[in-house]
């Protein structure tokens, strides 16, 4: 090797040149603009047209909702062009005046604190459930999915404060007692009688029956909240109630139907497939009509209108949920089933301990998406005369006190912002969960 630096007469360069920076036209803001906005004449034209459209849309929205908007006033006069003396945008006083109707419907004003309290408890229970790093997830989930629905019913509907709890506990005790007694009978049939099961089974059954009898006797009916009929519910309250009940009921229905669809028993499989395909093949609105008009015919006593709608929504979302969960079940490798069988687990344990936890974890994003879909579909209940947020908004338009050219647009802007905020948050959360659960496959 000849050392080039030692030889001054050499024509070769002695040291490696530092690379030059790339031309200014390829990096930095200019480079970005050239690559992403102006890469060819056609792209430049598209950029201009697109930017103009975007500017028009965003500006129209901002101009209407903020810049030209009216913020205070007592009636329509505040929002009329000729009274204000300029072209008026959104009429926010209309929204303030109708805010109660949009949120609660015709829920009595003096009882609205109950709705607020339910909402606060829901948020307090839900927020830690949604944040992965907060501990006590199991307790939190039991509280949210187990205790909260009873509490919410108690608060929103009213009636006795203690009774619903006693009823639920009583039925749970009866169920536990019966299962223990059946287990005892089976242990006897196999030979060794297990007296322990008999004792506790009989005890639980007795306690449960006692609790139910006490409720029947009306002993704890006294401390009670005044009943607010579901006819008086409305607005965002109904939207949230229908969506939440729908999704909570959809999970067990969906799990049962999904397992039924994969069952080896022909009758059960056929029934599950028939229910799923029948419900998925028709629009939600016909299911709602079915629940509203046909269900009362099939029952001895016609249930409350809200209950009928809830039944319809639950069946509908349950059928869709079944397909989501089936996808999760199909993604579980056969080895997991075989492993469970090799351990000697029976069917409920195999499903409950090994398969379902994995399958459900896989389809959490799907479940969140189902919830978004259900939240949007909730608007359809206004067609069967239940006033959700959208129904409340439409009712608000008819008030002559607020009739003005901009009332309609203000209502749409307000309801649109609420719907969008809820759905957008949920879809972001679904993406967040998806990324978090993706750890196994991420490299």
């Amino acid at each position, binding site marked *: 090797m000849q050392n080039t630096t030692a030889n001054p007469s050499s024509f070769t360069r002695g040291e490696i040149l530092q690379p030059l920076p790339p031309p200014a036209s390829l990096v930095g803001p200019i480079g970005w603009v050239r690559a992403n906005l102006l890469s060819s004449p056609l792209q430049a034209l598209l950029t201009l047209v697109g930017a103009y459209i975007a500017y028009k849309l965003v500006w129209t929205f901002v101009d209407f909702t903020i810049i030209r908007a009216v913020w205070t006033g007592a009636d329509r006069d505040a929002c009329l062009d000729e009274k204000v003396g300029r072209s008026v945008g959104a009429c926010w006083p209309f929204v303030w005046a109708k805010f109660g109707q949009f949120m609660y419907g015709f829920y009595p004003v003096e009882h609205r604190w109950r709705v607020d309290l339910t909402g606060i408890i829901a948020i307090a229970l839900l927020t830690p459930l949604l944040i992965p790093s907060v501990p006590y997830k199991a307790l939190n989930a039991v509280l949210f999915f187990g205790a909260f629905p009873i509490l919410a019913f108690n608060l929103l509907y009213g009636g006795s404060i203690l009774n619903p709890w006693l009823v639920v506990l009583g039925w749970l005790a009866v169920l536990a007692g019966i299962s223990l007694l059946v287990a005892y009978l089976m242990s006897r049939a196999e030979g060794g009688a297990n007296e322990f099961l008999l004792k506790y089974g009989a005890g639980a059954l007795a306690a449960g029956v006692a609790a139910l009898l006490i409720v029947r006797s009306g002993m704890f009916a006294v401390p009670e909240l005044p009943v607010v009929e579901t006819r008086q519910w409305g607005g965002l309250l109904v939207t949230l109630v229908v969506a939440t009940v729908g999704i909570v009921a959809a999970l067990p229905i969906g799990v049962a139907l999904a397992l039924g669809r994969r069952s080896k028993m022909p009758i059960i499989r056929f029934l599950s497939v028939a229910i799923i395909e029948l419900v998925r093949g028709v*629009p939600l*609105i016909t299911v709602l009509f079915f629940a509203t008009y046909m269900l009362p015919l099939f029952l001895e006593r016609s249930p409350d209108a809200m209950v009928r709608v809830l039944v319809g929504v639950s069946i509908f979302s349950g059928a869709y949920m079944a397909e989501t969960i089936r996808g999760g079940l199909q993604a579980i490798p056969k080895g997991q089933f075989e492993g469970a069988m090799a351990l000697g687990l029976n069917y409920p344990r195999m499903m409950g301990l090994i398969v379902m936890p994995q399958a459900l974890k896989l389809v959490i994003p799907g479940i969140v998406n189902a919830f978004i879909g259900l939240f949007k579909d909730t608007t359809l209940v206004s*067609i069967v005369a239940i006033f959700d947020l959208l129904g409340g908004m439409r009712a608000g338009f008819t008030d002559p006190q607020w009739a003005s050219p901009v009332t309609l647009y203000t209502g749409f802007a307000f309801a649109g912002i609420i719907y969008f905020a809820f759905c957008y948050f949920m879809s972001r959360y679904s993406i967040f969960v998806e990324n978090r659960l993706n750890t196994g496959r991420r490299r």
Partner: protein
Amino acid sequence: MTDGTLPARGGGAPKVAFFNDPKVRSLIFQGIALALLVFVFYSAASNAVTNLTNQRIAGGFGFLDKTAGFGISQTLIPWAESMSYGRAFVIGLLNTLLVAVVGIFFATILGFIVGVARLSPNWVISKIAYWYVEIIRNLPLLFQILFWYLAVLAAMPTPRNSYSLFGLFFANQRGITVPKPVFEAGSGVIGIALIVGIIAAFLVRSWARKRQAETGQQFPVFATMSGLILGLPILAYLAAGMPVSFDYAQQGRFNLAGGMTLIPEFVALTLALVAYTAAFIGEIVRAGIQAVSHGQTEAGRSLGLAEGRILNLIVIPQALRVIIPPLTSQYLNLTKNSSLAVGIGYPDMVSVGGTILNQTGQAMEIIGMWMACYLTISIVTSVFMNWYNSRIALVER
């Protein structure tokens, strides 16, 4: 253990309690399910009979022959109030199909545009497509239908101040008016020519494919096909002495005269369905195109294919395999979502059926007919799309 064997259990097969035998167990469970089902059906039926008797409603489909006596704002086949409920329901069904077909057609086009726009190298275009998808997908469909109906179309001018495009199309509060084709005698020839043209075009295509597979020679298939499909009807039109004319709308003093008016309910419903479904189709198209590995495009380039041919011959066929199954669900969703027409009073199957239900109280029959119709539409659509899917699916080994 003395001899290292297990103690015999009474000889023969191990004894299992009968209720632990899987066969017996599955029989028991199915028996319970069946008994439950029979019980539910029995009690539902007996309650229904009692309730219907109390309400004095006769079951059966006899009511379909009775006079309907209500008006329908859009009919594809002639309608008068003296006609029967059955015909009214058929009109509703046809209106549903009309919205579904028109909606699917435009939603597919707009969806592909949105999907491709989201992948555009142009930042502004891809961001617009992104926000279009986000906003549309996160607002309820009924909200959007009402928005188009109440906020956009209702803000149109009165008929005398209609917006007009080239004097052919007019938009006002009462809908959109377009020229109406008038078919005179001899116009059937054009339809026949169109059918012949389509059949001939497909024959040419399969012939050209076969020839290319055998000899490698290419044939200008697209030009020939469009020539046949468009050219033959035009030739027939000229040959038959121009039997089709258009009835143009005339702007009168107060109203538009002539032409064919699309009622605002139809326009609002179609616009909302198209915009909504297109957002979902856009995402499906994007996922499909992204699923085609970039190596495929590069391989196409290294073969020296032009960009258009890479797209046509390599990327789109592979993307379609990913796109078709979810696209089918979107078509079905659009058809089912058209039932939201009842929210604005477009006379679709649900809306007309609802009116019949309110007048006659025949809830069971009407709801049964709805469900049967929707299920049939769903099955036909998915059978067709599955057939198409199996044609384009990847055949391995």
